[in-house]
């Protein structure tokens, strides 16, 4: 049977000792899971290894750990697959999840971070009016729409790898915001606007997500929390026109209209408008002035180095007139629809007639790369 070496991070906070690494070599088939590897090491070599687990079938969400630096369910990761992604000389590196305090070895304090944040978004239905005599009738499409966020098993993998939370521990975070979408997208809930206003105005809310895709990568269930956060932003900004104090909606409005007017982005105008409001006069608003003053060290150096010239900042780059008109027509047509259209590939899947072109391209690239190497 093949051998696998697990390099496990050990830590017992109350011991007063620093964390350390310990290697365990286990004899197991490659298709067995990293969790089985850890449990085998614990049963046969060292009963003191701390790991939390239950179902061993990727449904309870207990055994979230970091494997080779990325959050995953230990029970859903094959040993051979983990070895392949290892950067550490044939060792599978297993650590506790990030962004949460360690209780012991691979066990983190989910209550202190994950569950606290879940509670923050009022994770239950708040229906309006008296309950119906019989069951609530919900259109099928509406339920399908929230299934993606309902697939969450609360394992905390996305929280572990969230790069915004890494620098701002207040950030409500991917799991809780995906949970928030589950209620904002549910027609039975009567507090959509209140929920969205709350999450837009909170400096640690939907506009604190840095759009890094790490939660999408980490999630073992395809919830794509970042996509749910973007849907919350779309609804907050465009359905309810919530102008938040974090500049989230103003930024999106300014960006979108500058591209409509010029075809490409005019950054020198985007920044002041994001603070001061989406119009020519935005840059004269007090908020834009304050921001300008705060950024002076960077602005002065950019001007000195001729990175930005005063004329370049005052005059937008534009695409040719005919093309600007095309772009404007596209805006008119799309924004003139009664209802916004969205395609969620989680629900619709890919066409089965043939492979998506993207994949075929990658394969072709892999082949050409092989031949040139």
């Amino acid at each position, binding site marked *: 049977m093949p051998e696998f070496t697990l390099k496990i991070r050990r830590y017992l906070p109350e011991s007063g000792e620093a964390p350390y690494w310990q290697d365990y070599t286990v004899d197991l088939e490659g298709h067995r899971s990293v969790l089985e590897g850890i449990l085998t090491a614990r049963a046969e070599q060292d009963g003191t290894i701390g790991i939390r687990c239950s179902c061993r079938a990727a449904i309870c969400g207990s055994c979230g750990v970091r494997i080779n630096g990325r959050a995953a369910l230990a029970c859903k990761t094959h040993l051979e697959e983990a070895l392949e992604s290892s950067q550490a000389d044939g060792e599978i590196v297993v650590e506790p999840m990030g962004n949460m305090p360690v209780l012991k070895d691979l066990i983190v304090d989910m209550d202190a971070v994950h569950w606290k944040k879940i509670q923050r978004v009022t994770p239950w239905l708040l229906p309006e009016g008296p309950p119906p005599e019989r069951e609530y009738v919900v259109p099928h499409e509406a339920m399908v729409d929230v299934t993606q966020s309902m697939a969450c098993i609360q394992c905390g993998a996305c929280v572990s790898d969230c790069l915004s939370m890494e620098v701002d521990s207040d950030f409500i975070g991917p799991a809780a915001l995906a949970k928030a979408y589950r209620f904002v997208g549910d027609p039975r809930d009567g507090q959509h606007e209140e929920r969205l206003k709350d999450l837009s105005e909170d400096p640690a809310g939907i506009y604190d997500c840095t759009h*890094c895709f790490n939660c999408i990568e980490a999630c073992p269930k395809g919830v794509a929390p970042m996509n749910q956060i973007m849907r919350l932003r779309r609804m907050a900004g465009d359905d309810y026109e919530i102008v938040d104090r974090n500049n989230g909606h103003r930024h999106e409005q300014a960006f979108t209209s500058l591209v409509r007017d010029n075809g490409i982005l005019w950054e020198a105008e985007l920044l002041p408008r994001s603070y001061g409001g989406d119009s020519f006069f935005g840059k004269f608003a007090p908020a834009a002035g304050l921001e300008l003053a705060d950024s002076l060290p960077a602005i002065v150096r950019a001007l000195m180095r001729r990175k930005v010239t005063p004329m370049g900042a005052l005059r937008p780059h534009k695409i040719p007139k005919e093309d600007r008109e095309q772009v404007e027509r596209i805006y008119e047509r799309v924004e003139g629809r009664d209802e916004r259209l969205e395609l969620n590939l989680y629900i619709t899947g890919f066409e089965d007639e043939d492979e998506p072109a993207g994949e075929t391209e990658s394969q072709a690239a892999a082949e050409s790369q092989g031949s040139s190497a």
Partner: protein
Amino acid sequence: MKVAYWPGCVSRGFTPELHGAMAKVAPLLDIELVELDRANCCGAGVIAEHNQELADTLNARTFALAHRTDGAMMMNICSTCQGSQSECQQRLDANGDYRELINDNLRPDGLQYERGVTNKNFLLVLVEDIGLDELASRVKRPLEDLRVGPFYGCYIVRPRDRLGIGSDLPRDTYLHRLIEALGGTVIDYAGMYKCCGFPIITMNKEASLRQAGTHLGDAVDAEADCLVTPCPLCHLNLDLQQPLAERVVGRDLGMPVLHLPQLVGLALGLEPKQLGMSRHVVKPTSVIDWSESVVAGV
């Protein structure tokens, strides 16, 4: 090799040195740049956040224009363009009805999106189409003794399935392999795959600059001479905002950040000034010193 070249908005705005460096490097690699000067902004994820159909239509328009360039491959010099255009392309390619609907938006202007447009960042073109062996054979001034930290940026490494990254196509190692092929020393540091923080610079400036400052600090601690990035938006937060990031993390950084074509250009024999490095907010002193020491050594 002819490419339908999409420079993006930022390389014509706040990072003009990027567009300039690419124009200088392309002929040295026999790349013919046919600029898509009629194409529009990719939306950088922000337009999609406002209206997905709008972002998909705008990018379908760009792809349709690229397709007209004798069917040449489309090449971008911005990871963020790569990521947001790939996201739209994934939806366009995944569903025929949806594609038809988007094409209805383009039809009045005589444009149509057809599946099969290849769109690659310069980094991917270098490794997959030019080849690192070929590139290495053109190196005039190997980056010997230059310690370079890769900064990938989110949009070119995540999500892996959409970007076609896997063990058969390790696109998330290309920057490492490229630095090696140019003769430089790769410096690994904690932040090399993390987010520069730029997307929230107007929403949570403190958190945004803390991200940039932390990664720059990690690179300083790992004793890198400079960083290199294929993303001009990362460059804005790492270079233009570096003085402010220093304030947030409370330490001096002084870490030069190069655009990908600048690093390639250096190895191909161009001078830092020709590559627009004098326009960076953080003066790349270590890189200039290095290039002068190489000249002195010859």
